[in-house]
Structures are given as C-alpha cells and as structure tokens.
C-alpha cells in the first residue's frame, strides 16, 4: 500500500520585481519530482545544503504551497496547503529540538495542542492519551509541567517526537532529527524511532545529510541534487553501487575509519547558482564524466538495475 504519493511536485520561489525591469525567473527550489513511499517504509532523503530537502519537507506537511504537482497521503489528495488538514495524516519532527518548543509553554500545553485542536478531545481522554504517548517515548510524566529550557537536547527531541505522535499521523517527516544531538544520544533517539515505528505502524521520511545514519535507518534512499532527484535505490546497495556520479561523490566523501584521506574532487567546485541555473544536468560542472550532451539536455530518471533509478546520461 502507498502511504505517500508525490507527482510532479515543484516549488518556485518568485523573486521581487525590480522597479524598471521585467520580473526575473523565480528560484526553482524543488524541480518537478515524483516518488512514492510504501506504508511502513522508511525513505531516506539525502542531499547537501541548498538541494531543496527542507522545501520538499515543508510542502509535504502543508506549511508551504507547492507551485505545481500533487500530494496524495493514504489515498487522499491534499493540495490546499492547510496544515490543519495535513496535521492528522502527516507530522513533522524538527531539526533543532529546543527551537521547536515554545519556551513559554509547559510540555503539557505543547503536547496537548494537537489533541485539542485537531481532535477536539475532552480533558480526561487527553490525559490518558498523553500518558500513553509519554510512556512510549520513555519520558517520565513529571516532566509534563516543566518548561522546555529544563531539558537536554535528547530529551527535548523526544518531546518533539511525542508531539508529532500525539496527532496520530500515518507519516512522520524527520528533518535532520539527530544532527543537533551528541553521538551518544543520537543513537538513543534513532533506536526509539525504530521502536515507535513498529508500535504505531508509522511511515517515515528521513531527511539528513549524514550518509551513515541514513543508511542505518532507511529501506530506500532518495538522493537530491540542486532541487531534483538524481538517484533512488535500496539503502543497502545505493552507496556501494551508485549509478549517478554525484551519489558516488557523496559516498567517497564520507569520512570512514581506515580509508586514506584523499579529496574525491580536487578542484574547488561549488554548487550551481540557483539564480542562474545551468542548462542540462546541474551536476555537469562537477562531473568527471560530463559531455556536451550533459550540458545541453537535462537527464530524466531512468530504471537501472532492479529497484534503482538514476538521472544520468553516462551512468557508472
């Protein structure tokens, strides 16, 4: 069963019109992309800063209106960018655990909000539900009447997860949920999310820049570059057998114990300029295999091997 289906979803940010000139073309933060996530699956989304990860996530939860395309969650089409509608089906766990909790509200007020607003639950039922959720994220109930600043990063992130769970969603988007945490705490949170997934039958979209983490938790991985999907494949094979040169560059760049230090890319290359995007493949400027074809035509996602797709004219 498909939990989340995205078709040709795109977002272009319009730029301000200068006083005397024509409106410049907008910044294409997310170029039309389609993918789907099966119920119970964890889809990892990897990419570097500026690749459109966060824009994609914000569209999926209805915080940002897409410029084009459609989003279908559990068979229902949602295209009105209304967080209230989205909230019951899909929730978000934020990157910075402390900045995602209102400093002037108690934890109880924070967790109660989705129950009160989305489900109009009466007080006794809310109490019962909150203690149930708190129990499953391993937090003590005495924390409920404290304020966010009293918690460590790991605890605050579990509170953030509890809030997402309270809305009883089908899908949770995890936007760099552990990158602000220390490594010893990071594993606690990742393992907890795995347990919760089984307990509540959740589907995850896991956004991160950390390849090792995403490989450890995902079933499939989507690699983004410059607002477009460049490769999709199974988590256990995509970094070992990448088809797109960018995926290979990513995998080669990750620091691994026991691998000698070499720069996989010698020239000091930078990401293409979003205000002045190149024609053809966006990666061509950094790609060792690039030809004239790459600089002229943008490759489309094609099937390469079992469950692997890559957008490349000259795959590896």
């Amino acid at each position, binding site marked *: 069963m498909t939990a989340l289906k995205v078709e040709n979803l795109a977002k272009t940010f319009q730029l301000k019109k200068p006083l005397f000139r024509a409106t410049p073309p907008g910044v294409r933060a997310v170029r039309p992309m389609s993918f789907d996530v099966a119920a119970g699956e964890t889809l990892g989304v990897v990419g*570097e800063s500026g690749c459109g990860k966060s824009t994609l996530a*914000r569209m999926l939860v209805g*915080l940002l209106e897409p410029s084009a395309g459609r989003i279908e969650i559990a068979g229902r089409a949602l295209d009105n960018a209304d*967080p*209230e509608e*989205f*909230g019951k089906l899909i*929730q*978000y766990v*934020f*990157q*910075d655990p402390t*900045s*995602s*909790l*209102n400093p002037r*509200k108690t934890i109880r007020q924070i967790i109660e*909000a*989705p129950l009160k*607003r*989305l489900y109009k639950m009466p007080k006794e039922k809310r109490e019962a539900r909150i203690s149930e959720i708190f129990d499953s994220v391993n937090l003590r109930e005495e924390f409920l009447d404290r304020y966010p600043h009293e918690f460590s990063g*790991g605890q605050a992130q579990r509170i953030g997860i509890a*809030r997402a769970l309270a*809305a009883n969603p089908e899908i949770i988007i995890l936007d760099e949920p552990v990158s602000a945490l220390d*490594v*010893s*705490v*990071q*594993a*606690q949170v*990742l*393992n907890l999310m795995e347990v919760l997934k089984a307990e509540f039958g959740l589907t995850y979209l896991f956004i991160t820049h950390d390849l*090792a*983490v995403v*490989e*450890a*938790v*995902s*079933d499939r991985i989507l690699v983004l570059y410059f607002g477009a999907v460049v490769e999709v494949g199974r988590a256990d094979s995509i970094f*070992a057998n990448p088809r797109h040169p960018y995926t290979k560059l*990513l*995998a*080669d*760049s*990750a*620091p*691994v*114990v*026991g*691998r*000698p*230090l*070499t*720069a*996989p*890319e010698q*020239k*000091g290359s*930078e*990401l293409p300029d979003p205000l002045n995007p190149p024609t053809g493949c966006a990666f061509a400027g950094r790609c060792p295999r690039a030809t004239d074809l790459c600089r002229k035509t943008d490759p489309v996602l094609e099937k390469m091997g079992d469950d692997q797709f890559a957008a490349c004219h000259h795959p590896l």
Partner: protein
Amino acid sequence: MTAFLKLLFRNQLAALGAVVLGIIIVAVLLTPVLPLQDPNVTATADRFLKPLAEGHLLGTDHLGRDMLSRLLHGTLLSLGVGVAAALLAALIGSAIGIVAGYVGGRTDNFVMRGVDMLMAFPYILLALAIVAALGPGLMNALIAVAAVNIPFFARNIRGVTVSLAGREFIDAARLSGMSHTRIVLTELLPNVLPVIIIAMSTTIGWMILETAGLSFLGLGSQPPQADLGSMLGEARSALITYPHVSVIPGVMIFLIVMSVNLLGDGLRDALDPRLRSGALSRPRATTLVDRQGEVPEATDDLLAIQELQTQFHVGPRIYRAVGGVSLAVKPGECLGLIGESGSGKSVTALSVMGLVSSPPGVITGGAVRFQGKDLIGARYEALRRMRGDRVAYIFQDPLSTLHPLYRVGDQLAEAIRSHHKVGKDEARKRAVQLFNDVRIPNAQNRIDNYPHEMSGGMRQRVGIAMALANDPDVIIADEPTTALDVTVQAQILSLLNDLRRDRGLAIVFITHDFGVVAQLCDRIAVMYAGRIVEEGPTNAVLERPAHPYTKRLIACVPELGGGRRELAAIRGLPPVVDDLPPGCAFAPRCDKAQPDCKKGEIPLDGAGTRAVRCLYPEADLTRDEEATA
C-alpha cells in the same frame, strides 16, 4: 519573582528610582483621603504666599489656591494620563507590530510604510495637529500622545515578531491545528510580552513629559483643573517674581520622569536575557588567571598543555570545564581531540591563547608552554603578538568569524599587517598567494568578495588562509568542518593534510567525528567531563579502545557500508561539570562500573604511547605495547 526583584535592586540607581516613584505614588494615591484643601478654591487675598506659610505648606499660586493640594491632584492626573497613554500606545502599537510581523508580505509592507509616514512628522507637530483637530482637553491630549508613540511600539514589536515567526515552534503550532489568531495570542504574545514591557518602561517617562508639554501650551487640561503641565504654564508669568509657583511642579516632573526612567532602565536590564547573562559586558582581553599550586616544568615539545585547569565562575557555581588536561604536539604532527559537547575540548583549545572569555572564565592551574615558554599569565602584549602569528585558530563557523562588512582580502591583509610591517600592495599580493595555497579558484577576483558572497566551503578556506597568513607553527582547528557538507568537508580535510605535510605545521584538531579523526590525525585524545580519559596513536585507539567510554562512543557512530541495523547507544547523559561525582565521571553510565570506580582519583595510566584513565580497561595496554614493539 524574588530572584527577579533581587536582580532589579542590585542596580542601585533602579532601586533609588523605585523608592522615589513609590513615595510619589503612595502620596498621590492617598490624595483623596488626605485632609487637603480643595485645589480649585480661589482666595485672591492669599495669592502668591511663600512656602511654609500658615495653612499652606507649599504656599499658594496666583489665584491663592493651595499649592500642595494642586500639586498632588495634578500629579495624580499627570501620572494617570501618562500611564494611560503608554498603555494605549503599547496596545495599539504592539497589535500592529505583531500582525504585520506575523502576516508579513504585502500587509506588512503597507502597514509599516504607514507607520513610517507617521514617524516622519516631528512628534510635537503631530500631537499639536491631533489636538487641533480634536479640540483641546486632557482626553484629547492623551489620544495625541498615544498616537505619537504608536510607531515606536509598532516597529519594535514587529522586529521581534518577524524573528519569532520564523522559529520552528510556530510551524509546529500550525501543524498542531492551531488557527492564526490562536498562534498570535498563545504562541507569539507570551514571547513578545517582555519586549513590550521593556519598551513601555522606557517610554512612560517620556509620555508624561509630552502630556505636560501639551498642557503647558494650554492644549491639555483646562482651567481650573490642575495637572503638572498646566501648573507650569500658569506660573510662567510669575517665573521671576514668585519662582516657587513654577519650581514646585517643575521639580515634581523632574522627579517623576527621572525615577521612571531609572526604574525602567533597571527593568530592562533585569528582563533582557542578553543583558542578564552578561553578554553585553565587555570581556577582558585575556582570560583571567588565578593559579593555585605549582607550575609544571618545561618540556621540549612545540606546544605543551600541562595539567591545565579552566573554570567558569557563574554566581555561586563553579563549572570545572577543564579539569587537569595535559597534551603535547610536535612539528608536523596532528593531534585529534575528541569529545561530546560540554566535554571541555573547545575550552581547552581557547585557554591556550587566553581566549576564554572572562568573566566568567578563570584559568586556575597548570601551564601552556609554547617552545618552553609559559603562556598562562603572560602579559597581554606578549600574547597578542603570538595570537595568529605563532599559534592560529580555525573556528567552526566561518560566517560568524569573518566580518560581514569588509572584503575577505582586506581582512586577510589585516591579519598579516597586524604582525608584520608590510605595505598594502605587498599584503594584498600575499593574500592572493594564500588564496591560491588554499585552492580558491580565481583568487585574484575572489579576494574582493564579501563573506556573504562565498559558499560555506569557500568561506572556510578563507578561514584557513587567515590562519596560515603568518606562517604559524601551530594551528588549532575547532570543528572546522562540522558546518560543511560532506563533499566540501572532504576537500577541506585533504587541504589541511597537505598543508601540514608541506609546511611542517602542528595541528590540534578538535572534533566529535571518529571518521574525520581516523583520516587526518596521528594521535588522538578522548575527553569526557573536562578530562582526558584515553590517548594514544589513532589506529591503536580506534582498533583496541581501552576506555569503556571510547569503546562505546565508537560503537555509537554509524559507519557507511554497515547496512540497516540497530545502533548502539549509551544510556544516560554526560554529567554537568559543576557537580562531578568522585571517581570516574563515566561510572554512572558504564556497564562495567564497580564500587571502587566511584571513589578517589583515578590516574591516567599508560604504557608507552598509550594511556587510559580506567581501573578496568577494555584492552591491556602493556601487552599492546609489547606487540607493537
């Protein structure tokens, strides 16, 4: 609340203001019940009586009315109008500010340009125009004063709201199904409220003054009603002959405005979190040194940190951020310093050049020797000459270490010129050379960029170029790649590695990433709760970690190529360093902990190149050493 009051009254001027204002308010509130004469009864026979005259403590005015009675009634009115105007202005101004800041876009633009237009008028002219349109009277003066002050609140509150509206908790509230009105009222307002109070406390005195000004001009309270401004206005004609009639209300205005402002400033300082944490107090040029105990002997290392202890004294609490750390590097060597946040790795690094901010930082023991010379307690001039010249730093976030308003090339040239007497052109030439050294493409043009025009990776290259500018002997790199993308990280790491080989640089590399350390460093030291728990050659430590913490921390870090799996975790949290348990700091989280782990000092023991601070190490170091020998 009591803590807040304590903080407030530690400021003696604020306390003085509170006392004066308190006396005035009590006197004014008691006015209706005090046995005073009617303020409006005239007795022309008794006009202009001097103060202390019989029956009139403060004398009488030009119509023979009792000054004391008029003063108290007038103060009541002036205060009341001032406070009401401040409340009105705060209410309307904040409402405009919050809505404009939250909604943003066109609404924001439209509303704020309107507010700007209001601000473009001289305030007194605007107030006069409003009163002229509405007609004179105290109520209209109040409206005028409030209207004149609305822009101040609107702009202030809008600024705060814009930064709050972008915070993640607002998004979270929307996903919780809250309506916009509810978000404004329950999420934004409580966070904006302190700012509104601060703004009010600093403007209320000003508003009392403005009301008095309007009354003075005859546009506020109408005779015979007394307020401070109109009393002054009426006394104007007798200013020279009977000064007490104008001096008395004048002094009262002075006292009120003065005390309100003093108290307001105190309130602002006590409420503002930045001021409260002391962020705006200027730190000393070098870290405070208060060394107890003996200073260790010199060694022949290039840079040696010996038994270093750095503490933070915050109120009654003492945080032992660095509790006796010893490290040493030789030329061309790279030492990795690994630890989680709060383990004291950055404070160790900053202590080397006395860069820990004081207050609250204090170096309380040990020594840092560069080529045998002790740097702790060295004079500021001596330290300043070495900073960036012999020992240079690379920090985590190049965006916050580069000055946003200067071109990167100029900043680089400045770094050279502050240590060497070279001309501008020469410095620029060296800057271009350095840009080439750190492989910034198109160096000749890039040098004239501003920091915001460069990508994160390029900015960090500038940071490295700046560290290299004076050909230092030691570079201390504090998480230089943490803020960067992996592909960029790989480039920066290999660049650092090449530089160290080419120039014989010693690098102290601070990180939390084992992968990075494994690729770059010759030796590593692992820190936990302000102390080194294990050190040794990189491969030996990573392959056979001896301290349980090292072993489990390595297991926590997922490695690429391991496939889908459950990750190892360490239960519990790192300890807070203001209250460390006796014995091993890791014992509460350790599976192998025995009763004797929790008492007494556990030494950093080792054999040969390796050392571990553990009673029950995971690996036998002596055997390890024999095997390598």
